[in-house]
């Protein structure tokens, strides 16, 4: 008889506290009924008990039937958005590792085999991690958000007149463009955070011997905040495009706002003190790439000193064009 208690315990311990006792009582009387029918008045032995329990089946399965829990990690409600985010995560992870591989190969081509091994190891560890974290991030809200599916059903009423018009090809925003955009922004963030020491002029004396950096090393950590902010804004913009799927006036307005914020952030960052490497020209000379007072030096120094202005001009033109382009596309009917 002890086995019956153990069986019932195995079933009920995985059920909500409020139902445990009731289900346990009901199972008890069920098992006794089944035993009675089996022995027809004779003594009950362990053999019969085992047979009856075998008939009821695996306690885990029985508990599952009582709970009626879903047998999936990420339900249909979330699955589409899960796939999109998963693609983004995998593409950006792969690109980052691949670029890291390429950079290391250029810097030190002799040990290419080592780099390749690192590349493979990186892929094998990072891709499953990206996959795992994305899945984890979606499984958690799905697990706790049981009410949500009911809420979604309310929004399921529709009339044929509610159907959105087929977007004009010219107004449509390509889905893969936005994903590629997000992947690139993520990639740049990763480069700025982890590989910023390679941003500059690479010096080769027979082999790679150092970098003359573009950016000021001392103020880099505060610049980095702005850079992440600006790239993050870019990611938000691409997400908006992904959500809207086509150019509308609303989307153009949001894009304009977001672009304005990033222009302001870039201005603050570049005009703030010491964003660029102040010793850039000196270091170039020291590295032996140019000699002072030569024509080449003058050219480089003109380019270097004017670069801030030109970068700003190009950026502003680019971001304004982004808005105008959206406006033109939204206008097409």
């Amino acid at each position, binding site marked *: 008889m002890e086995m019956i208690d153990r069986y019932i315990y195995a079933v009920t311990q995985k059920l909500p506290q409020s139902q445990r006792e009731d289900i346990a*009582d009901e199972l008890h*009387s069920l098992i006794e009924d089944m035993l009675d029918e089996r022995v027809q008045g004779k003594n009950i032995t362990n053999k019969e008990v085992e047979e009856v329990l075998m008939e*009821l*089946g695996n306690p885990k*399965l029985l508990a599952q039937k009582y709970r009626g829990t879903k047998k999936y990690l990420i339900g249909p409600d979330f699955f589409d958005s899960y796939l999109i985010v998963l693609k983004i995560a995998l593409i950006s992870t792969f690109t980052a590792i691949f670029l890291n591989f390429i950079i290391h190969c250029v810097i030190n081509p002799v040990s290419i085999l080592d780099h390749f091994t690192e590349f493979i190891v990186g892929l094998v560890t990072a891709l499953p991690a990206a996959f795992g974290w994305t899945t984890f991030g979606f499984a958690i809200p799905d697990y706790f958000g049981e009410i949500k599916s009911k809420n979604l059903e309310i929004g399921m009423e529709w009339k044929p007149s509610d159907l959105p018009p087929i977007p004009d090809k010219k107004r449509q925003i390509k889905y893969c463009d936005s994903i590629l955009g997000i992947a690139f922004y993520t990639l740049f963030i990763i480069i700025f955070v982890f590989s910023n020491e390679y941003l500059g002029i690479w010096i080769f004396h027979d082999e790679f011997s150092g970098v003359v950096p573009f950016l000021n090393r001392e103020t880099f950590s505060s610049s980095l905040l702005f850079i992440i902010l600006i790239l993050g804004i870019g990611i938000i913009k691409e997400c908006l495009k992904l959500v809207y799927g086509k150019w509308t006036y609303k989307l153009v307005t949001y894009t304009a706002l977001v672009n304005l914020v990033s222009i302001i952030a870039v201005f603050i960052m570049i005009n703030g003190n010491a964003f660029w490497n102040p010793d850039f020209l000196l270091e170039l000379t020291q590295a032996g790439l140019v000699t002072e007072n030569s024509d080449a030096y003058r050219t480089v120094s003109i380019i270097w000193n004017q670069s801030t202005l030109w970068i700003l001009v190009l950026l502003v033109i680019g971001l304004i064009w982004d808005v105008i382009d959206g406006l033109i596309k939204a206008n097409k009917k």
Partner: protein
Amino acid sequence: MNDAKEYMNKLMQELRRGTITIGVLSQLSEAQYGYSLVTSLGEKGIHVEPGTLYPLLRRLEKQGLLASKWDTNEARPRKYYLLSETGKEVYELLIVEWQHIVQNMSNVIDVQGGDKDGDD
């Protein structure tokens, strides 16, 4: 041939899942406890395992189609289930729908059978 049987088993499982509910509702205009329901359905040719029926009874009770009451007067306490008012209504509606299905399905199947006979 084994494949065919496997597919049939899967489809039968889906079919049975719905019909068992109707079978259960049909028997509960008078109060019964779980195991007596297993027996009475079994006698009528509907075989349902206790491990499936008990959770189903609970789900139907939670949905409000059944009402339940513990009878502790006898030597063995048992939980009795009975159709609620909603349950009765749902059952009446289900019968009509079921008869439609039977009729329509037999129309479809008979036509196919007729063709076969014609070929022979």
